[in-house]
């Protein structure tokens, strides 16, 4: 099972404040432990929402709104993707994480959809097309 583990933003991440050397060192050790356990698939940090945009959809209309966006606590500052055996195992790993922000913070854990979750609606043909696309994307990333 794959899980997306998301660090929620706060005022400082939204202001573009970079983490301290102490936190980076602790986080580096934590990330190493994820790698050694063979469960880390990806890890990225996101630039503040001030550098981003939102696209709203209404029928054929598209409205683009530039950042920053209010409600910092609803925004994502970074994420990991972990491959583990259960939600409990994902939670255990997250509890070991150093507090990712200098003050209060929250990490959200969400299970990723796998092809097998979709049942019959996801026909063998669609599954093949999806698998082929993922293989090509993976090959492109490495090249």
């Amino acid at each position, binding site marked *: 099972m794959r899980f997306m583990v998301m660090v929620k933003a706060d005022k400082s991440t939204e202001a573009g404040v*970079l983490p301290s050397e102490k936190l980076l060192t602790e986080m580096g050790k934590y990330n190493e432990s994820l790698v050694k356990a*063979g469960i880390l698939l990806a890890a990225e940090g*996101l630039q503040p929402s001030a550098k981003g945009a*939102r*696209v709203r959809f209404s029928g054929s209309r598209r409205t683009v709104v530039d950042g920053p966006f209010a409600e910092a606590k609803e925004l*994502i500052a970074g994420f990991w993707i972990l491959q583990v055996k259960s939600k409990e195992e994902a939670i255990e790993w997250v509890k070991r994480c150093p507090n990712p922000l200098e003050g209060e913070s929250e990490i959200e854990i969400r299970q990723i959809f796998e092809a097998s*979750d979709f049942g019959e609606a996801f026909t063998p043909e*669609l599954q093949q097309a999806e698998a082929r696309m993922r293989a090509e994307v993976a090959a492109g990333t490495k090249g």
Partner: protein
Amino acid sequence: MRFMMLMIPRGYEDAAPGTMPDADAVAAMMKYNEALQKAGVLLALDGLHPPSMGARVSFASGKPTVRDGPFPEAKEVLGGYWMIDVKSKAEAVEWASRCPASKNEIIEVRQVQEFSEFPSDVQEAASGFKEMQAAPGRGTAS
């Protein structure tokens, strides 16, 4: 430049455990995904089960506190994401605008932090991160 396109479906914050996307919507989305892939800009994509099947770990008290979903305070939650590699934010927004999304959905476009953007002391403290990204534990995990 790498950008994350975050799909935010309004209403998904209240979705019941086991909620599945509609087959027609998935078929339309697959065409869009193929267009991203053919253009050579797609790096990764995933959909997320509803928050009612997830958990939140908060560090408010210094110690981790676990809460199972759903999260009544959430006004918007993530439904899935694409990671793309494009030349500019404008190009990322252009791709987001082409998505066959519904009225209740918003796509947030956010630039990914690249290692090279960090000041040298931060790069030093984060040394090993690039190697981690290059060699994730995929082999042993599957």
